[in-house]
């Protein structure tokens, strides 16, 4: 079963994403900030197949986590979720190795299509 790690500082968003992704048959783990993502990835040898990373989170932002994950050699697909439609932020994320950007509010048809494509 495909494992997806979802990181967002909002419990509601986490609940939404977990519910929706589980409905689609994914195994979902969650993290509340960038640090938890890093911990989760390093703690589990049998890590996630894809990470859904909110750009703005306390303690450690999604962008910072992305940078560290990529510099740590992690190669699994990572999608950045952002409330900012600002092109600067999105362009920056792609340069740092994100595999795509998901603007809020989330278009789930689009998101699920991309996850399927990246993990297929």
């Amino acid at each position, binding site marked *: 079963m495909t494992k997806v790690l979802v990181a967002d500082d909002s419990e509601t*968003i986490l609940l939404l994403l977990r*519910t929706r992704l589980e409905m689609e048959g994914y195994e979902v783990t969650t993290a509340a900030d960038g640090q938890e993502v890093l911990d989760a990835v390093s703690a589990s040898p049998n890590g996630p197949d894809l990470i859904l990373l909110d750009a703005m989170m306390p303690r450690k932002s999604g962008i910072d986590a992305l940078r560290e994950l990529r510099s740590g050699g992690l190669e699994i697909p990572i999608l950045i979720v952002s*409330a900012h*439609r600002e092109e600067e932020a999105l362009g920056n994320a792609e340069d740092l190795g994100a595999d795509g950007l998901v603007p809020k*509010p989330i278009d789930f048809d689009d998101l699920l299509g991309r996850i399927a494509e990246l993990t297929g």
Partner: protein
Amino acid sequence: MNPSLANRLRIGFAITFALLAGVTVIGVGRLFQLRQDFEDDTNRSFQFELAGEHLRQGFLNEQARLDDVADRDPGARARYRLAVRGTDAAAVDARRLLDNDSEAEQLLNTRVAAEGRWRTRVADPVLRGRAPPPARQRRLAQAVVSSGNALIANESRQRQVLRDQVSDDTRKTALLVGVGLISGLIAAVLLFSGLIASMRRPLERLVDASGRLAGGDLKTRVEVGGPAETATLGLAFNEMADELQGAYRSLEDSRRQLAVTLESLSDGVITVDPGGIVTDANPAARRLLPGATIGTQVREVLVTGSITPGKVERLLAGLEQEEVHSGEGATVLAITGSPMGTPEGGSVLSIRDVSERARLERMKDEFVLTASHELRSPLTSVQGFAELLMLERDKLSPKQAETVEIILDNTQHLVRLLNDLLDLARSDAGRLTIKPERCDVGPIAEDAARLMRALADSRDQRLAVEIDGDLPQISAEPDRVKQVLVNLLTNAHEYSPEGASIRVTASRVGDEVELAVADNGPGIPEDQLDYIFERFTRGDAGLTQRVGGTGLGLAIAKSLVELHGGAIGVSSQLGEGSTFRVVLPALSGKEAKDAPITSTDATP
């Protein structure tokens, strides 16, 4: 008031004229009279002398006739008596011409007496035939001749005396006339110099006073006096001085009011001459633009900031209404220029410190940006959970399903509103950017129409797309152009009734490509056309309640079009429909396509 100078002059002239004319008439009359008398006297004198001559001739005749008598010549006695009568007639003539001359009368009497003695003592005896001795005859005849000669000599002498006297009288008269004329002239000179003197003092006072007035002493008044003219002049001068003083005072008052007003204005005011040199600056101007001191070139002060030289020129000419100029630190100044409108030219610049407004606008922009970001997460949840519910629609009652659909519709609307607000806030903050690329408008228009097709169909509206062949390419961000068209089409759809006809056309107009969205809806009232592109402006309130939309679509469309270097406009006829036209510059063959254009390049 004194008699006028004109009247004084008239009187003076009359007196002088009468004086001179009198003297002349009297003198000349007297000379004529003298001449006449002289001629009369001379005439009579010559006649008297002639009578004397006749006496002499008569006596000679008597003597000759008496000699004839003595020679016993027949008829001689008759001739002698005839001669005696001739002599006596001459004596009567002479006596008639005597003219009260006693000396001449005495001489005449002597002559007549001598002749009488000669007749009695010589002629009578001869006639009786007894001739007296020749010595007596000679003596008595000699007495007659000498007394006659004396008479004639006396008359000749008298004439000489008369001539001398007349020439003496003439000289005296001429002298008198001359003296009279000279006195008259002297009197006239005195009269006129008196008149001039009566003018001189008041005139001198006027000259002095006008000199002082011209020198700026507006309190100067002149003492009114002299002839009516100078008195009037003095009164007029004083009145003029009063008015001048009054006018100057009110001018001074308004100048002072203006100065106080300018001093107390919180806006800066700078006046510049036609060359752009600062001629005056109020305290606020000196505070806001410390460089703009009197005598400096205003262009140098202004151009250092965000204002280009061209804008400064338009500002000075009054063509540019307002410019934002980043002064010292975070100061933002709004500058308005207007030409002075005086023959000398020059301009007035008013400067307002709008830093606070600019700061508030920045805060507002930041707030909108932040708020729209912060709202996205909750919106994501609402929309996401509503979608979750809809995934299990079969487990919901129809009523519940409808409710969830309403939630989703409103969420969509909220998202559009947030996106629009965000675009506008970015545009205001100068952070709205486009990524232009070389593209064709045809597919963009088709794309926009396709997005709108379902909505149009839902209300039986016909949606036609007409793309001219051979359209030039444009440099634009296709998504943004599509956004503009979708905004226009959304309006056309929402404001037009069911069954309406909507047309999207793309055509070439000169060096530009024109995209037009036309509908045959209700049209837009003329008074709303001017501000229809302002945000949150929507047409008819009745329609507004029915239609959706955020009221931001046209404002965003305008920002986006201007960001592309284009222009947007509308024409509308009530009851006929509206046409929105977007013109975008066409790309010429070799033009570069990838330089990003930021909003600061295009938005005012």
